[in-house]
């Protein structure tokens, strides 16, 4: 395998991780963990198959299972890293505000709905690929997509004042 194949995947992974976690540092941690996990799981990837889909699968599994990362995000308080979004000011102020708003709404979706929505919308994956990456049946992917889009619309339509940043955080146990 050409090393540049892997390097070429990093920007896409970082962006997806950013949208998934809403936090610059957590996102890059997740990408780093994904690359390291890939390193120890290489024998599961077959040359000639879709490297991108495989890396997203590795990342998905890490994200879905890593309780400690969620805990860290809770400890740091705000899940939305506003400073990280500020530099996206290539466009007028409105764009940044919209991006922050969109990210905040995304984070209020349950993780499994957010994942499916991002893989379909941001990553433009086919429903079959999403099913493969998330290890879910196609029907589950479709119902999550439906719920995610309906819920996101509600959140985006709701007056900003009623959208509190705090959202119900899952109760976590630290496993040692």
């Amino acid at each position, binding site marked *: 395998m050409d090393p540049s194949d892997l390097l070429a995947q990093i920007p896409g992974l970082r962006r997806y991780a950013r949208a998934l976690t809403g936090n610059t540092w957590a996102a890059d941690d997740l990408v*780093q963990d994904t690359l390291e996990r890939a390193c120890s799981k*290489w024998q599961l990837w077959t040359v000639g198959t879709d490297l991108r889909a495989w890396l997203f699968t590795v990342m998905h599994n890490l994200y879905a299972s890593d309780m400690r990362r969620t805990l860290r995000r809770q400890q740091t308080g705000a899940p939305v890293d506003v400073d990280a979004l500020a530099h996206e000011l290539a466009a007028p102020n409105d764009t940044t505000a919209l991006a922050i708003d969109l990210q905040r709404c995304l984070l209020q979706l349950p993780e499994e709905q957010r994942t499916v929505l991002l893989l379909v919308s941001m990553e433009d994956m086919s429903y079959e690929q999403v099913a493969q990456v998330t290890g879910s049946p196609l029907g589950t992917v479709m119902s999550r997509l439906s719920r995610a889009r309906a819920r996101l619309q509600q959140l985006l339509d709701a007056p900003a004042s009623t959208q509190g940043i705090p959202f119900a955080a899952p109760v976590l146990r630290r496993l040692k």
Partner: protein
Amino acid sequence: MDSRSTRPLSDDELHALVDGQVSGAARSVLEERLALEPDAQARVAQWQQQKRRLQGLHRAVLDEAVPSPLLEAARQTSRVRQSADRWWRMGGMAAGVVLSFGMGWLTHTHWQDRQSGTLLSRIPVSSEFVRQARYAHTVYAPEVRHPVEVTAAEQTHLVHWLSKRLGRTLKVPNLSAQGYELVGGRLLPGDTGARAQFMFQNGAGTRLTLYLGAMQAPAQSEVTKETAFRFETDGAVPSFYWVEQGFGYALSGPLQRDALMQLAQAVYQQINQ
């Protein structure tokens, strides 16, 4: 057709339109039906707008310079993959073996850093295979008069015969450098087909057996490729066992782990030369 076209569009159909996952004639049909459903049109428009916004989210990240820790992690990962590919091409060990042995097998630091217990636990080597290998060892190793069916004196015949029965060209490893000479071999039944057992003995009368045979065809091809050494101490006699391209091997003998591992390494290297 008529009854179909009067049915309201389902959510799945609307998503497929938004996400461009239907094309050609099927898409035209859906679009015609959509034209008759204002509610569905509104939803499609909302979802399309969501999708555009999501596609624009964090776009700047795509153009950012990749932080150096990530570059380093990617390079490291590529190097490991390339080494693994090289090993495969050389007909050498699969990454699993290298990772499992970790220490003492290779001096390459990357491998040493990556010793992984998860690999070991995940690889589905049949415990039934090892159990049978140990039974065969405990039954035949103490045998005085007929420890083998065909003795080492007829080694060419022995190898030819067992290769034919197991459906693969077998190689008998030479362990004389380790002080063990071939006694001979025999054919045995196994749960997934014929098995061969080769027996070795050293000057002190200690006997080793190498038990081998085709594993059951696994559902996933990747499983057949995976190789990992495992050490098994349960029961009377310890064994090292591994799978190589769908063929299982178990080396059993009343030895300490380290000594048995060195012998297993020698066997592995010779078989895969």
